[in-house]
Every structure is written in C-alpha cells, then in structure tokens.
C-alpha cells in the first residue's frame, strides 16, 4: 500500500507533464494511416524563413537590436504567518526565490516552522530549474533538512509548473545519501472572489520510504500541511491574509509523534502576509 502510494507520487510528475515534448518534432509530419490520397502527396518540406542559421549576422558594433535574454531575480514568501490554537502558537514560513532567464534558473526554496522556540520541519533546497514545456520546469538539486533535529541531505529531482485549470503544482522526488527515498507534492489554486480578494486552498504532502523517528518521519504518507487562505492584494506584491491551516502527521508518523508525546495535528487560525519582490 505504501509502496503504491509512493509510486503514485513519483509517477505524478510524469503524468502531470502534458504531451509537451512535441517541440520541433511536429515540423516533420508523422504518417497517419488515413486517406488514400495522402500517398500521392509528397512530404511537406517545412522550412521557416527565420530558421536558425550557422552564419552569424554582422550586427553593427556587435550590437543586438533587442536583448531578449534578460535575467531576472524574484523572491516570494507565499506563507509568512502565525498560527494560533489553544494548545500553542507557532510561526511558519514558506518561500522561494529564483534568478535566471527564460530557460535556466537557479531556485532557492525554504520552509520551516518555529514552535515554542524550536525550529522544526525546516528544509531548504537549492535547485537548477530548466523550462521544458509551455508550463513546466524540471528541477534538480539538493535539499537539506536543517532545524532542531538531525540534519539530513537529499538529492532532489522534480517538476514545477502550472497544471490544467491553472493549478500551481510541484512534485519532487528525493534520494538521501543513506539510500532512502522521499517525495513531496504541493499544490495550490487561486480562486478569485474579486480581483484583489483571493481564496487560495493549498496543500503539501510528504512521503518517505523509511521511517526516521529522530525527525518525526514515518514510512509512507508522513505529514500534511494544508491551508485555506483568504488574501487581499493591497498591491500585487503585498497581500495580508487570514486562513485556517492544518498541520499534522499521518499513518506511521502519527504513532511516532504520539509516542514522543508530541502533538499529532492541529487546525489553527492563521494570520499572515504574502509578499514578493
């Protein structure tokens, strides 16, 4: 059962990619076994007037008339929030930043929770991102779990992009130096109530092949962090929100946390700010 879940998680990225790999391949038509008239037609010889050439154009002074290979730097804090509940209050962040051009970017992702002065669930990724289709990027790099628990490092490979119906989606598979595997799936959706008032359901799931009690990780579906955020975009780059959020451990991890006398899950009232630059 767990295996099946994990497999599904790992396969998701592949299925989420639309049939995008068409790229230039479509310019050479494939045979379709249809009408007989086709046989009499010679193969279309597609040729673009602006096809790339090896002969460089001699631009005056070596100046390109437009610079379409600009590089950009942006960072976004999707979650910067306090979560309130009778049992305790904690503080969470989840954000990412990238630098690069249209195809190649360097990504930094970071998330973590501060609870009773202790940092947990802190992980940070440094990824190379490559645009591969209209809406999808493949990302590869390293992830380091750095917080109050023992540090773990992982190799990461995943996809990030915009799925059908405009769901933001990320799925990443991880392999640790100790031969363990893990996977994370994140999704969110912006539901516009008005042009500035936006309701955003969001969820993140973590899966592991082996348990790691020191980090409160259980085999299988280990933990979930979900929220329903109602933000108001005062301006695009600054949007305060209210939310209900749920963070909790599932299946085996739930037992591990229970045995450690930890809290296995809580629904909390949340206030925060979404901001980017």
């Amino acid at each position, binding site marked *: 059962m767990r295996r099946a879940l994990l497999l599904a998680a790992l396969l998701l990225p592949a299925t989420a990619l639309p049939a*995008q790999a*068409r*790229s*230039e*391949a*479509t*310019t050479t*038509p494939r045979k*379709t076994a*249809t*009408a007989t*008239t*086709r046989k009499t*037609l*010679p193969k*279309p*010889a*597609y*040729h*673009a*007037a*602006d*096809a*790339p*050439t090896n*002969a460089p*154009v001699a*631009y*005056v*002074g*070596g*100046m*390109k*008339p*437009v*610079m*379409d*290979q*600009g590089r*950009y730097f*942006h960072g*976004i804090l999707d979650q910067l929030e306090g979560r309130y509940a009778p049992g305790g209050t904690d503080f969470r962040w989840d954000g990412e930043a990238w630098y690069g051009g*249209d*195809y190649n970017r360097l990504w930094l992702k970071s998330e973590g929770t501060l609870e009773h002065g202790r940092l947990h669930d802190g992980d940070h990724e440094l990824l190379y991102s490559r*645009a*591969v*289709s*209209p*809406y999808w990027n493949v990302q590869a790099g390293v992830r380091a779990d750095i917080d109050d628990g023992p540090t773990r490092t992982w190799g990461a490979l995943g996809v990030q992009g915009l799925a*059908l*119906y*405009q769901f933001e989606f990320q799925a990443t598979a991880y392999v640790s130096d100790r031969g363990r595997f893990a996977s994370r799936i994140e999704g969110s959706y912006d*539901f*516009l*109530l*008005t*042009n*500035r008032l936006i309701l955003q359901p969001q969820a993140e799931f973590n899966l592991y092949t082996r348990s790691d009690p020191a980090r409160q990780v259980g085999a299988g579906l280990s933990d979930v962090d979900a929220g329903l955020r109602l933000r108001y975009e005062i301006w*695009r780059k600054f949007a305060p929100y209210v939310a209900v959020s749920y963070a909790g451990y599932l299946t085996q991890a739930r037992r591990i946390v229970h045995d450690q006398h930890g809290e296995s899950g809580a629904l909390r009232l949340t206030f925060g700010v979404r901001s*980017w630059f």
Partner: protein
Amino acid sequence: MLIPSRNRGGLSRRRFVTGLGAGAAMAALPRPLHAHTPAAGQVPPVARARWDLRVGRARIEIDRKVLHAPCIGGDVPGPVLRWRENDTVCINVTNTLADEDTSIHWHGLRLPAGMDGVPGLSFAGIPPGQTFTYRFPVTQSGTYWYHSHSGMQEAQGLYGAIVIDPPVPDPQACARDYVILLSEWTDVPPMDMLSNLKMQDDYYVFRQRTLASLPREARGAGGTLAALKDRLAWSRMRMAATDIADVTGVIYTYLLNGHAPDMNWSALFSPGERVRLRFINAASMTFFDIRIPGLEMLVVAADGNAVEPVPVDEFRIGVAETYDVIVQPKEARAYTLFAQSEDRTGYARGTLAPQPGMSGPIPPMDPRPVRTMVDMGMGDMKPGSSMKDMPMADHAPDMQAPHGHSHPMPHHESSTMEGMDMTDHAPHAPMSDMQATTLEPAPHGHDTSMPRHEAGAMEDMNMENMHPAGHGHGMPMPEQGMDEPMHHPRTAPMHTHGAMHHDMPAPGMAPVLEVDDPGPPPLNVENQNIARMPTDRLASPGDGLEHNGRRVLNYSQLRATRPGSDPRPPTREIIMHLTGNMERYIWGFNGRKFSESGPIRLRRNERVRFTLINDTMMEHPIHLHGMWSELENGQGAYRPYKHTLISQPGSKLSYLVTADAPGLWAYHCHLMLHMETGMFRTVIVE
C-alpha cells in the same frame, strides 16, 4: 496654447523644473527649437529640411507621475517635424544623455538603411555627447512619426510626429490641420514592468473574471452553467479571456499630445470648416479606439498613404499606426476627441472647440472586450467545446459542405464546387479547375496562393461545423475565408500546402510560388497555443468593436487611391506564425524568440508575400522597416500601403512586399515589451 491643469492649480502642463540647479542646467542647454516650436499638436507653419534635435533627460510631471524622461528639447512628445516630399532632409541629433546611447528611428519612412536609426542594424547608435546627422531624400508624404530604438527610451517619452507635405497640392488639404499623437505615461520604468510580467503575467490586469463578476456574465451567457463552462474552458487552457492588454491604466495615464485627460488639450475650429486630424499611436503598449461623439470622421489616409475616403464613427488605431481623418463640425460647440484604451482601463481625451477653454461631455467607456474561441484560432467553436468533438476530416476526406465556405466573392458560386470529389483526383487537378472556374475572376490580390489553401482545407476537413462566416462576430469573410488547413499537431499532414505548391505547375498561371512554411508551430516553452483554424478577420474592426451600433473602420475597407506600383505577383511566400507564452512572458515568431532565430533573407527586388498566422490571443502590430507592406484585403491592385499591420488574435492575413531597399532591417511587433522579449527578426535584403 497652454491649458491650465485643473489638478495643479494653474501650473502649465509640466516641465516645471524644481531646484535652482536643475533650472540653471536647463537654461544652460541650448534649445534652439524652443523659440519656434508651436504648442503640442500644432503643425509648424512651414516645412523645413534642416533640424537640430537634442536628446536629453528632463524632469516631466504629468498626472502626478514624475519621470526623468529621455526626450527632445525637454518635451514629451518631441516637436512635430514638418518636411516636404522630394527635399533632402538633414537632421542633427545630439545625445546629451549622461551615460546611454540613443537613436531616432523614422517610423514608416523609406530611406537608405544606414539612416533608419536602429542600433546594430543601421548604425552604431549615438553615444553620449555625440551628434549623428541623418540625411536622406524624402520620397513620400503623409503622417508619420519618429521614436527612439535604443533600450526602452521610446516607452518613456522619446517620440514625436512627422508631417510631410506632398509635392502637389493635397486634394484633402484642410484649413485646420492638427496632429493628434496618442501615447501613455507612467513613472514605472519599463524594465520593472517587464520584470513584473516575467513573475506574474497578469500583474497589471485587475479585470479578471471573478466570483463577483459571475452573475453578470451568467446573464450575458444565458445561464450560470454556460458561464461556468466557458470559464472552465479557458482555465483548462491556462489562459484568461480577459487578457486584453499586458499593461493597463492601473499604471498608465493616457496622453493626447502629451496632455493627460484632465488637462483637456484643445484645438480650435470655425463651424463648417473642414478639420484634418492626423492620429498617431505613439504608445508603447496600448491600442486606442477613437471617436468624436457627434461627428462623422472621414478616414482619408492610413499609415501616411491616401485611401479612398471611408466615413466612420469610430476606428481602432494599433500601436505605431497612423490615420488621417477629416471632420466637419457644423455646430459652434465643443466636441470631445475620445480615445479609450482597448482594455477600457482609461482614455486619452481632447477637445475640438470654436473657442478656447471649452470642453465637451466625456462619454462613458464601453465594456471591455472578452476574448472568445475565435481569438484562440478555433474558428466558431462554442466556448467549452473541445477540438476532439469536431469532425476532423482526416478520417473522412469527403467534401460535404463546400457552401460552408461562404465566400462573398462575387463570382464564387458555391455550387461550382459542389459535387467535386476531391478524393479521386490528384490534389492539383481540381485546383486548376477551381482556378479556372471560380477563383480567377475574383478581383483580389490573391492570384496564386489561394487555390492551394482552399484545396488543402477542403480536402482535410469536413466543413459542416466550421462556418467561418457564421460565428458570433457576424462578419463577412471577404476573400480568404477559412483558407488554412487546420493546424493540428497530431495530424501534421493536414498542413499540406507546404507540399502542394511544389508540384503545382498550373499551366498559364503565375510562376511557381516558393513557400517558406514553418509548419504548425511547436508547443514549447516559447509557445502555448496553435491557432487550429485561423480565420480571416480583415472585415472585423477588432475585439470589442463589433456590433456596438457604430460604424467602425475595418481593414477590408481600406482602398488605396491609386494602384500599387509593383504589379508583379509574388514569387515567394513567407509564412510567419505569431507565437508567445503569456504565462512565461516570452514572445516570438514560429515558436522562437529573436535570439534563437536566424535572419529573414530577401533577394533584392524580390516580390514576397508575408502571411501572418496569429497563434496568440492578442493583437500584434507587425512593423517592417524600410519597405511597404501592401495589405491583401480584397481591393485588388488598390491594396493599401502600410508600415504597421494589426494581426488580430486567431487570424490570418497576408501582404506583399517588394524588397527594393538593400540592407539590414528590423521586423517586429511594435508592442515594446513583446519586441524586447523576442518578437523581432532581422530582415536582410541583399
């Protein structure tokens, strides 16, 4: 003629330089033009062949938005340059900017390539502190404009109007003659705009469909379910039907001759007089819809060239286009020049008045357009329906409904094609029949290329559900109809015309047409859509202007006053797909941006047909430097000569070019941010 601004307590419209230092610096600058520069929009009284222009930055405040704008003589827009045809003009452009190059491009003018003013292509730009002398013979007359082609200076204020007198008296000469230069103003640097759009493509759009707007849409669509279905269809495509403009009135103030709407730029007339208004769209990202409530406008020139007068109530002017109109106000009252942006987030406004200080009523803005499946290049498909449901006829190549084609071509009887069984013939055989029987008499410029498209289309699809003329826009498809076989990535052979022309000797017909056909564009990082059924939209005035109860100009109405100077049929067709990925904010042609493409090479004096297929859901003003673009709009030899052509979303159009100007030329979308992100090609005429 400085009209006090309501907002700023009587200060003149801008250019109040603060600080003694700055004032002294400005005073120290020689500004030779200022003494005899008429007020904005006033055509100088006489033409001059020699001009000195100084490019510098000046503090300019309009509508409380302060910019140290690169401009000429401290003015936005720059001076109106009045020239005379057949003169050789000499313009000294001095760059007084601190640390950046500049350039001036003479938009729409035919001149030696070295004078065109595009850094990298024509010359090396004008470095700070240096003067470049443009000297070229003026071989045309009409309304044009100039702007910087360096960096994004044009978006910040470096532009102005050009008026060229014809050598003989103008039959349309008017007692009053004004330039109406439209542009936009913001204090947001263009690079910041681009950066924001790379992060969030709808950053400046606050007109999305929302829960709050659902009831209204449901009423329009005839039911909540229908409205929801349409939304789902769009969100399935990961696009927004409300994508009208990338940059909007959220940051832009729209200007008329450099005046914000509340400054009310005014021009005078005496009742009964004919007044010529030379409209220029010098905006970098905005299309305007122009009308003068209460006045009929007579369109007499497009892009500098005279056309048979067309009386209209309204017209759309794409970025970089120019239109001359004549109005004849009879009453002694104020008339409002009203230019609303296509996305209806703002307007530019001025007044025609018998006396200074008057202002007319400002009409409310129209509702903003909403894109439909036509804009996605899906013909008349109902929103929400899928391409899968369509009788894609590669399974049934019978020609069931040729009348679905409904060409309003005079001699095109649908019955002539009825019963033709295309499947039994080699594809070129019925085509020559068609040429002989039906197509030849049609008085339009499409003498060679059309038949093959037709055959391709008819062979490949069951036309039943695809009446191009039957869709909601209700426009008569003037000549091409649905002349493109459906672009379908999975059945690429449908895109047959690339092959067909090669063995189409067509006895007695024009020479064989060589075709540079890129095929259907790839769906890749740089392209998110394929127009599967691009339609002819020349008879459509554009999204948001159809069925608004007014007579709105469309491209098929433009008819030149004299036949084209090059009667040769084209020997080559260059098909260009306009592509882009709005989500990533990358634009280009054929699924590639500029830096990943080669140049387009034209042979000297070659006669070329450019065919544009717009796979995006936005309008693109496509501009070829140095040569005319003769729009094939069904007017036969009287094709209108233009320098900038709006390609409507999901549309297909073609135009002819005579490559009579050797050198390197720019070819690009004139939306500044589209050009800068890759919708640009180098054209080499050798």
